[in-house]
């Protein structure tokens, strides 16, 4: 039940975030680079949104993977291990992703590029 609810709630969140993401980031398709991303992410509000997006997509993706795998009968006995692995993956993903988002700072490196 919990997985199911997580899956639906994150899905609803994703509808919003993903649409936003596609419209803002990827359209119109043009050359994408650090600076363009940075322009947007300079605003902490956008950072927050991206982090929320990241969390919901991770929840959704990992819950989804869990659902897909536990549907297979042979995996059922291993579901605790599987859940553990996925949670760890999730935490790594979340930390790494947050770190990524936060690293879009206008730091020295950027000044060097331009």
């Amino acid at each position, binding site marked *: 039940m919990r997985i199911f609810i997580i899956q*639906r709630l994150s899905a609803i969140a994703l509808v919003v975030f993903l649409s936003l993401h596609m419209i803002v980031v990827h359209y119109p398709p043009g050359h994408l*680079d*650090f600076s363009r991303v940075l322009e947007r992410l300079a605003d902490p509000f956008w950072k927050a949104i991206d982090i929320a997006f990241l969390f919901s997509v991770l929840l959704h993706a990992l819950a989804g993977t869990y659902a897909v795998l536990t549907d297979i009968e042979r995996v059922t006995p291993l579901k605790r291990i599987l859940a553990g692995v996925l949670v760890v993956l999730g935490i790594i*993903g979340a930390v790494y992703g947050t770190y*990524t988002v936060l690293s879009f700072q206008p730091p020295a*490196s950027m000044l*060097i*590029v331009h």
Partner: protein
Amino acid sequence: MYKSTGFISFFLRRFTGLVLVLYLGVHMWVIGAATKGAETFNARLEVFESPVLKILEILLLAAVLYHGFDGIRLIIVHYFDVTDYRKSLFYAAFAISALLTIVGGIPLVLYALGTL
């Protein structure tokens, strides 16, 4: 496997879901380059800006769209008593995602052609 529209929708949803998870991994790795500085980031991103991969991105777009609309369809079924319209709902989700894939695909193709 028992063949039916139900199965097609289920299979596509699963398949696209898993493809998206894999993509998510790759995507995070690419963006993750930002932690190593703008240069690495741009370099890694550059790979994905190649025309071939841009065309492949259409498939990705199709996957996201289908998976998303199919997901919305399911959520509608959960909260409204609409099982009688199950076939129409599936066709609708499929049609909308196909349409949007085309709409969204054109700029991608143009872009790919442009950079060629």
